[in-house]
């Protein structure tokens, strides 16, 4: 049930100026869901570490204590690392985590019972004075060396004219820093499976893709673009910005994993069928 919290890179939205979408995460030392009687069961200090991927090591670049009941906001811009480096925040009750790691340690959990809902951070995206947020996480199990696949679609895009753009942020994390496999991500028309774009994304990376440059926003209604990968999975985050004469609006959301379309014990049969229909090999 424990979670990693990858921190999205800040990225420039336009080559004409240096305006960027910046990110931060807000993390807590407090159970997000608990029986009331258990709420104060565990009151230990927790330490939030940030490691970034450097060659074949996870290298520590941030460590901060968080007392019970408190929170931290970790801004990407305040991490003293190159802007393209992949960074991940990890909670731990151990205050002496190593400076360099061959394998990421398992995150500690602030949960103190079996109440549902995974541990989450607030993912915040900024542009000028506008901020948009969602509650998200990267489940520990997804960072293990298992084979997964990926299915999403562009219906969450909100771009509607030349003044707005939608970006897809694909996040993949593996505990092992040596994992740098290349994965083919296909963007294709759902109506006839004609390929619009093939993008290579590496394991252990965050990739920002401008969807508005790949396909027309109008098509997302009648003929949505499907986005698939047969060799790994990603957390897909859709960020749209709109420029109203330099007053910016920003919006973020992620698509559900496809398993969420089904309920109960038989859901995996249906999921298997759905994936075999749509995931291009």
């Amino acid at each position, binding site marked *: 049930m424990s979670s990693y919290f990858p921190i999205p890179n800040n990225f420039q939205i336009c080559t004409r100026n240096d305006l960027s979408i910046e990110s931060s995460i*807000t*993390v*807590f030392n*407090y*159970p*997000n*869901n*608990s*029986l*009331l*009687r258990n709420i104060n069961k565990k009151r230990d200090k927790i330490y939030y570490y940030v490691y970034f991927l450097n060659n074949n090591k996870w290298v520590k670049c941030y460590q901060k204590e968080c007392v019970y009941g408190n*929170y931290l906001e970790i801004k990407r811009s305040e991490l003293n690392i190159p802007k393209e480096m992949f960074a991940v925040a990890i909670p731990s009750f151990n205050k002496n985590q190593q400076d360099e790691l061959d394998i990421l340690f398992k995150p500690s959990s602030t949960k103190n*019972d*079996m*109440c*549902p*809902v995974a541990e*989450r*951070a*607030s993912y915040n995206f900024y542009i*000028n*004075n*506008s*901020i*948009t*947020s*969602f*509650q998200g996480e990267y489940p520990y199990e997804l960072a293990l060396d298992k084979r997964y696949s990926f299915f999403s*679609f562009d*219906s*969450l895009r*909100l771009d509607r004219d030349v003044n*707005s753009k939608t970006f897809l942020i694909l996040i993949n994390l593996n505990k092992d820093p040596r994992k740098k496999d290349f994965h083919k991500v296909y963007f294709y028309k*759902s109506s006839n499976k004609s390929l619009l774009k093939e993008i290579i994304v590496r394991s252990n990376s965050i990739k920002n893709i401008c969807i508005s440059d790949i396909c027309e926003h109008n098509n997302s*209604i009648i003929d*949505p673009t499907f986005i698939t990968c047969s060799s790994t999975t990603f957390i897909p985050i*859709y960020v*749209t910005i709109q420029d*109203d004469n330099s*007053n*910016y*609006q920003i*919006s973020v*959301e*992620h*698509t*559900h994993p496809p398993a*969420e*379309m*089904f*309920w*109960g014990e*038989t*859901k995996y*049969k*249906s999921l298997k*069928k*759905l994936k075999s*229909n*749509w995931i291009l090999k």
Partner: protein
Amino acid sequence: MKNFIKLVIGKKLSRSLIFQKNKKYIPFKLRSLINPESLYSDFFILDTNIYKNIFIAENIFSLLNQKKIEVEHKFRFYSKEGIFLSSKSYKSNNYLSKIQLPEFSNQGSYISFTHESIPIVKEYNNKFSIPELKQTTIQHRGYSVFFKNKDSLGSIVHGNFGAVSPSNIRNSGAIIRAKTYAYTPSYIFKNKNIYHLVFNNPTQKNLKIEVMGINLLDNKRNLFKLDLNPMGTNFVRVKDFEGKISFYSKLPICRSIIFKNPEYLINNENYDVFHS
């Protein structure tokens, strides 16, 4: 060992025993897990005061059959008090549809609705034409898009809880338990914003919620109480507050949709809607 026990006492009995042991952590009825309805819907929120509400609906029949199948996307709307207001249907064979929802004036600020899709052609009506998927139970999640005014970019929220059986709400899956739970979103509310924390009640019993936070501006405790009828909707307005907020109730997953700066006079720049 687990498999051995399952073999000896049978799958359903074994699941019932595990359920009984852990039920205080499970937000669903046993029946919905061992003998589910053919479909469940999340319980979505509609803002009656804004320019428009759009719903992004998945056509799961088309996606599973890998061809366009015409379905009726049916929405059932419930008032703030939980009274059924009306239903509205839209036909489409698209894999995904963006549907503008009807306007509801004089219904308070927020109401709730369910979504289901029903194939028009009978051949697909009894679940799927694929034999091995006859037992599939569909979960309608979908996405709500809120446009505050004509110039608004829009803000999206995915469905996050409900387990409502739209055609017979007494068979819905969500349940209120005997224990009290505390849910705390990992979000710091900021003094410069106004928030509406909107809750709805997908269960068949009244839901009492206490919304509580210590305001870091004056170290005082702020407490709001809500009492929601079954299928009802209500909200707490948060202003001049800085800090974290918790929700206390007997629903094992009780989380609001957070509307940041939804009020008309505040400009679009910092409008946001997200689930907690």
